[in-house]
């Protein structure tokens, strides 16, 4: 198992290298490049020449890339062109906020999605199933940013229960404040993910119900609750986890948009700010960090397999 994890981590390297090179090359290809941002619009020829010299921008692209890579490997992603703070420090300040939001959203998604899936799978094509299926189609189809706006209108503007813009409050410092601040963003992102969970878990559960072992269990007189909760659930989780792994990209996209709706200070908003100010080192750092997170999540999903189904061996 440890060997498998190590091998998977090593396999991530070429993809990361390729992606980092692609991002680097794209930024290099920008007309004017980072130099226009560094020196400002009204810079003289001498100032431009001096900046090119100072940042080594006159060297071949491949040389610049390996220079950047060498420093990145030691944790030096360069300085932000605007705040002049280290990129890694800026990302480090925002990362806990994003992780807290992601965790809260997953809890909401499980709490909403799993019961819906079970309730509709127990009696397929009943009126309850139809209502719940329509609900999950809505949860999937309604754009996250519009849902966020509707929730703000209801809970912040009309009822005045919750704030319309969210701050990051670490959960262990003040659980009550953290929950107040997280409630709407987590509900927004969680509802979308619960739509995914409900749709695919339902399909997976219905598929398993026709299996032989279910008939055997029924014939033996195993209580229905135990059949659904223990026998079917465990087998249905396997195809379902695969889908969830594939949908993780949507989850990350949803998180970026959700942070924007609630002006939540996470990585997604940092990236958007970096793009709008053309802060290239910061763009590069944010995209790489999100990509690494995405790949680690996928690895985590694969490891979940072993826990759900001991028959799977990792080589």
């Amino acid at each position, binding site marked *: 198992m440890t060997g498998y994890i190590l091998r998977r981590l090593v396999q991530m390297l070429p993809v990361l290298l390729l992606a980092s090179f692609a991002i680097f090359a*794209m930024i290099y290809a920008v007309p004017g490049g980072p130099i226009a941002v560094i020196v400002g619009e009204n810079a003289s020829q001498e100032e431009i020449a001096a900046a090119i010299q100072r940042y080594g921008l006159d060297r071949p692209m491949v040389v610049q890339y390996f220079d950047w890579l060498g420093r990145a490997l030691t944790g030096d992603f360069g300085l932000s062109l605007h705040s002049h703070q280290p990129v890694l420090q800026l990302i480090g300040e925002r990362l806990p906020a994003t992780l807290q939001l992601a965790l809260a959203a997953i809890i909401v998604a499980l709490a909403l999605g799993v019961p819906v899936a079970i309730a509709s799978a127990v009696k397929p094509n009943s009126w309850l199933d139809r209502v719940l299926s329509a609900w999950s189609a809505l949860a999937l189809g309604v754009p996250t940013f519009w849902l966020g706006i509707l929730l703000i209108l209801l809970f912040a503007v009309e009822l005045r229960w919750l704030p319309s813009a969210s701050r990051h409050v670490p959960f262990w410092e003040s659980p009550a404040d953290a929950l107040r601040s997280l409630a709407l963003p987590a509900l927004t992102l969680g509802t979308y993910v619960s739509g995914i969970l409900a749709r695919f878990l339902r399909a997976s559960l219905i598929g398993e119900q026709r299996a032989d072992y279910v008939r055997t269990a029924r014939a033996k007189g195993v209580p229905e609750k135990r059949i659904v909760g223990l026998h079917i659930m465990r087998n249905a989780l396997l195809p379902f986890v695969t889908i969830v792994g594939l949908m993780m990209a949507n989850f990350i996209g949803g998180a970026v948009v959700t942070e924007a709706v609630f002006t939540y200070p996470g990585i997604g908003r940092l990236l958007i700010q970096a*793009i709008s100010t053309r802060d290239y080192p910061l763009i590069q750092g944010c995209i790489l960090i999100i990509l690494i997170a995405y790949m680690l999540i996928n690895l985590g999903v694969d490891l979940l397999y072993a826990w759900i189904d001991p028959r799977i061996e990792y080589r």
Partner: protein
Amino acid sequence: MGFSEARRLLRRLLARRGAALSLAFLAVVALAALFAGLMPLDPLRQNIAESLKPPSPEAWFGTDELGRDILARVVYGARTSLVTAFGAVVIAALIGVPVGLVAGFYGDWRDSILMRCIDVLLALPNILFAMALIAVLGRSQGAALVAVGVAGIPGFARIARAQVMALRQLDFVMAVRGFGGGPAYIMFRTILPNALSPLVVQAIVLASIAILLEAALAFLGVGVPPPTPSWGEMLRTGKSYLYEAPSYAVLPGLVLTLTILSFDTIGRALTAIIDRDETDAIHETAGGGRR
């Protein structure tokens, strides 16, 4: 897919209530976008004295922070959305389909190389990829269109590849090969016309994804630049006026959501119809018709 077959498909689509409603809604949106110029609507005329008004007989959807008619901006925003979606689907199909055809037809090193590239594209969350591309190209309608289109390439490539692999050993393809048809002729003139249905479904599914992605980019402030009306941009600005004019963000969002849901509903209905046809065909060749 010939004309009569398309008409038959349309009839079966209309027999489904959800799909028929979706089709009607999309027809209204498309006609409004097409004939926007003929309607007494001006998306750019400002009137600060009449800013942030609620819906009224004069302005059905109310007015925005500059006193512009929101309904007019929604109608012209439909143009932005539909043009982006159409352009993105065309880009994705023009690149994705040939890639998938070549990869599936040869199945050798060409397959490995092409599909690894597709995998890398698939590994990136598409909104992230689109944002990176826009960071490089700068903010414009063209950049948004290309970014959304490139994100759609893997879908077409995978479906085209699967279709070729299923068809290339069939008798009619072997016959063309026997008569001396070259690889390009077989791929584009023999196999492609027989693989159109799933590709058409993919185009519709991608249209709904493209509209969502374009709106999301505009909402994040990196999509089509103002003053071009765009649904995502309207939600972005409307969000700042939730207390003064709640309908500003709600109504454009409703039109956007219904458009996305409509494309999605039609895509799923078509998939169901085609799946059913295939099952029927298998039953017929097996000797026992199902109907």
